[in-house]
């Protein structure tokens, strides 16, 4: 199989818009969690979220008009706008644009989303009920479909290769990058724009996840403390919005044009829990087999892993199950590994999480620093693994593993390696 490297990154997250801004703030220990102010929350048990800072585009704020014309924004849900922004950033960062028709045929898009345009679905259902079918916009369907993120990106950039989308709940972003890397490895494309996007900060989604008892409800007055993976006071995840998109490239293709290379995608593993619709299997077996498969594909021993970007959503059950699976995987090497959950700073971006966290893993490799697990004041369990409490940790990182686990018992792990110059 052909080798696949990452040559471009794009981020829109609760810590801002733009890779360098987000990363600088993440390493500095800043939080993107805030009180929800855009819709009624007083009757909801969870009232906080990771909210993208909107503004005029300066100082890392996100200005949707910079990425999509207002008349086009009107036709789509925010998850598509976020994906357009992150894809534009990633392609610009990669320095690659298709020059010939053959270039276009060999370049595809694979951007997923966990739940797509819930906000628009909520509004359209009201329109249908209150005003009837003749008032439903012709853009209702194309503005909500999950694969339309890939569709819009392909149209803007003229990418005519594989056009695909993943929908695997909170594993979406990782599956998208892994699957896209496979498409390159197998020769279906030379370049893939891949990642995840999500815009779940709306009343319907918050109410829905709250009904699953998945969300943090004890920190409504202290939003930055709400996401606290591995901490004994954790009580659920904090939802977040945003997108992460990478440019994946066949290794020789990237080398031939002298591209900057963030790292190589050396491993990708997938597994299913076959256990429960929302709860992870109690023994962590799905997570374990997923990571093991990724390491097998990478052809490395567990001891080669330096940094793990955990799924770590801050739910009472999930965090310790994942930690147990990682511990089992690493065996004697556990004491030498550093793991953190960046969801502590930005919340859980659902379908975007795996892609955003893959990007954080690549930046950890680039800058040789592990981002912190915020709010980890009193770990709920003892472990040999360094969970990177509160502060970023400068360290040698050659290999990073990024985990994502989703509702339905769907698991994905990605392994990235620093490329020697």
């Amino acid at each position, binding site marked *: 199989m052909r080798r696949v490297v990452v040559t471009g990154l794009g981020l829109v997250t609760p810590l801002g818009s733009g890779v360098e801004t987000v990363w600088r703030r993440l390493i500095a220990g800043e939080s993107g969690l805030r009180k929800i102010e855009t819709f009624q929350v007083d009757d909801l048990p969870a009232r906080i979220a990771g909210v993208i800072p909107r503004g005029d585009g300066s100082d890392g704020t996100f200005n949707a008009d910079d990425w999509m*014309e*207002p*008349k*086009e924004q009107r036709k789509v849900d925010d998850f598509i706008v976020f994906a357009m922004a992150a894809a534009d950033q990633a392609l610009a960062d990669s320095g690659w644009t298709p020059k010939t028709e053959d270039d276009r045929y060999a370049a595809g898009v694979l951007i997923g989303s966990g739940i797509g345009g819930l906000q628009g679905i909520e509004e359209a259902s009201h329109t249908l009920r209150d005003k009837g079918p*003749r*008032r439903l*916009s*012709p*853009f209702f369907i*194309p503005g909500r479909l999950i694969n339309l993120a890939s569709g819009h990106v392909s149209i803007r950039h003229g990418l005519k290769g594989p056009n695909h989308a993943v929908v695997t709940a909170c594993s979406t972003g990782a599956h998208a990058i892994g699957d896209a890397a496979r498409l390159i490895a197998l020769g279906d494309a030379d370049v893939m724009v891949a990642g995840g996007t999500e815009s779940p900060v709306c009343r319907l989604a918050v109410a829905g996840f709250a009904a699953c008892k998945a969300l943090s409800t004890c920190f409504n007055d202290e939003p930055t403390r709400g996401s606290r993976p591995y901490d004994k006071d954790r009580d659920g995840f904090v939802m977040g919005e945003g997108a992460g998109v990478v440019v994946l490239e066949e290794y020789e293709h990237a080398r031939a044009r002298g591209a900057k290379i963030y790292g190589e995608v050396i491993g990708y593993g997938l597994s299913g829990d076959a256990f429960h619709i929302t709860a992870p299997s109690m023994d962590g077996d799905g997570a374990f087999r997923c990571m093991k498969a990724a390491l097998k594909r990478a052809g490395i021993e567990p001891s080669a892993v330096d940094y793990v970007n955990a799924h770590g959503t801050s739910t009472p059950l999930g965090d310790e199950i994942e930690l147990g699976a990682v511990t089992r995987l690493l065996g004697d090497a556990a004491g030498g590994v550093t793991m953190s959950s960046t969801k502590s700073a930005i919340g859980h971006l659902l379908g975007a999480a795996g892609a955003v966290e893959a990007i954080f893993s690549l930046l950890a490799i680039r800058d040789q620093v592990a981002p912190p697990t915020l709010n980890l004041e009193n770990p709920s369990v003892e472990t040999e693994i360094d969970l990177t409490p509160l502060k970023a940790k400068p360290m040698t990182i050659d290999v990073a593993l990024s985990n994502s686990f989703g509702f339905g018992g769907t698991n994905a792990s990605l392994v990235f390696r620093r490329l020697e110059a």
Partner: protein
Amino acid sequence: MSDIAERVKKIVVEHLGVDAEKVTENASFIDDLGADSLDTVELVMAFEEEFGVEIPDDAAETILTVGDATKFLEKNAAQA
């Protein structure tokens, strides 16, 4: 310009995101103002909403320019 023509123009400018001076009587939504077939469906819906009329599909198919819309609405609008 009639009141109806003014309101039609305003809707077209808003929905298609085009400069007001391009929205002339003879301007075709698709050929001159960059609309696609879905845009024209939405435009007709916006006219229905603004003018409180129902525009049947066969009539909507004949509304190709700004002037077509104005003429139809001047004839059929519930309130001018």
